[in-house]
């Protein structure tokens, strides 16, 4: 079983993101980067499927500058077999990313593509669905599982996706509950937070990852025009919410809610 995963380099979501004074981009001083958290979940799921299957290959793809190799090495330290960097000098939009990935998929012919449901920088949440459409494949977005992340199944590192008889069974988190779909392979799946806890890279894993191959491609190699369909004109900060007051006790709180805020 061959599985292809996307790994995007993003700003660490736990740090404060601020806009440049001229609104051209975010302030990059002192910013740390990491793999998109949803993509780590995708890689973890791919590795579990490969392990459960007993054989296979996990290929990670990143679209970005040379520095994105760091995030792919992280995925390879987790256990992915090799990387493909589609080297771009500027940020590409979701649509261009999907068309680049579609060309990589045509070359690699994986059985399954697993991507994060969204990248935590752009928050668009479109690439997986666009990719599925460009490939003419079925899709299952927001993959999770019935069991919680504290469950025995999770501790036993069981895959949440079930691959059998040329299909993948996916439990999806949607508004109102959980939906179960069977998607014929090859298919595109995007990950929700509750699919798994990604593993940490081990020291031997990190050493091994350094020797794993990374192929470099360009949009021109793939014959894809990356002119964006969605252009960012400018960035601004949302209105700050002012801190209110601390109340000493419940009686004061109730009084304030009734007479000042008038919400109860």
């Amino acid at each position: 079983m061959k599985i292809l995963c996307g790994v995007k380099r993003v700003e660490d979501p736990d740090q404060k993101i601020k806009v440049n004074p001229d609104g051209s981009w975010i302030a990059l001083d002192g910013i740390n980067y990491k793999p998109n958290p949803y993509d780590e979940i995708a890689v973890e799921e791919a590795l579990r499927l490969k392990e459960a299957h007993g054989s296979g290959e996990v290929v990670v793809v990143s679209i970005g500058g040379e520095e994105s190799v760091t995030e792919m090495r992280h995925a390879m330290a987790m256990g992915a077999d090799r990387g493909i960097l589609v080297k771009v000098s500027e940020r590409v939009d979701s649509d261009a990313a999907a068309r680049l990935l579609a060309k990589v998929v045509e070359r690699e012919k994986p059985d399954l593509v697993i991507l994060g449901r969204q990248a935590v920088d752009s928050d668009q949440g479109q690439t997986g669905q666009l990719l599925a459409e460009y490939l003419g494949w079925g899709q299952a977005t927001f993959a999770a599982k019935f069991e919680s992340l504290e469950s025995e199944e999770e501790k036993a590192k069981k895959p949440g996706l079930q691959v059998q008889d040329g299909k993948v069974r996916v439990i999806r988190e949607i508004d109102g509950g959980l939906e179960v779909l069977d998607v014929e392979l090859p298919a595109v799946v995007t990950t929700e937070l509750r699919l798994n806890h990604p593993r940490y890279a081990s020291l031997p894993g990190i050493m091994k990852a350094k020797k794993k191959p990374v192929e470099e491609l360009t949009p021109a190699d793939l014959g894809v025009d990356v002119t964006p369909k969605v252009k960012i004109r400018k960035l601004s900060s949302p209105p700050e919410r002012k801190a209110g007051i601390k109340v000493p006790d419940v009686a004061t709180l109730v009084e304030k809610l009734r007479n000042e805020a008038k919400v109860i």
Partner: protein
Amino acid sequence: MSNVLLVAEHLNQSLKKSSLHALEAARQIASRSGGKVFGLVVGKGVGEVANELARHGVEVLVADDARVEHPLAEAWSKVVEKAAKEVSATYVVAASGSQSKDVLPRVAARLGAGMASDVIGFGGEGAEITFKRPMWAGSVIAEVEITTPVKVLTVRPTDFSAAQPGEAGQVRSLELPDLGTIRTHFVEFRQVKSERPPLTEARIVVSGGRGTRGDFSPVEALADQLGAAVGATRAAVDAGWVPNDLQVGQTGKTVAPDLYIALGISGAIQHVAGMKGSKVIVAINKDPDAPIFQIADYGLVGDLFQVVPELQKALTGK
């Protein structure tokens, strides 16, 4: 003329209220572009959903067919594409619920359109419309331009008021396009049933986080006393304490109630992204330095297991 196609979301044969908020966004676009808004309802046994939408003053196309009973993106995207072409839509708009997030990117690909997700407002001038949308979990608002002739959007319901009923529009049926081979198969839907108001529609939301240590009974008791919806942080959902459907935040639901009561919630950026539009925020947390106090209108430092019963008593003894 730039017409707008509004794709309705529905569940259990009823129109989701969020679609009426999206309708308001669609109207705003149409009034600037000089076009007309059309509605689209896809599903099986959805005649009443179509009528309800039409009562809000829109002409509605309805594709009512067993073959599109379940919202499979592969099939629905073809139906939306056909409807968009039939009404010469320049804009395809829907509320940013899980159905539309799943289906609309495929529609965009089929129409060669650029797409903006989670739009919260419009900029630009006249018919040249730009779209404002959050990035980096709402730490940044981007103003984006879509360069393609057709544009696809999901809009955040909390940032638009609900469209009001008007003169009923016509409802006409849309014949399904050739759906081709569908490679996705519906197996089951395990719906979470609740007596409480839906999270995204409630006037009051009471949410619990890690501070509940898995015991949501104070959260639920307070919610029930106030007729409120129950929400939760990612940590609480990850731990399996409450169903995923209750998650408020960057990847969960965005809520903007009149009153949001955060119990044992630290206030991580990802959670705040989903609730900072609330009118009044109350935070109750043991840790006086919890970041949630920086955005709360009223903060009370204390153990929720002691404070909530007291609060319940105080609310009863009016």
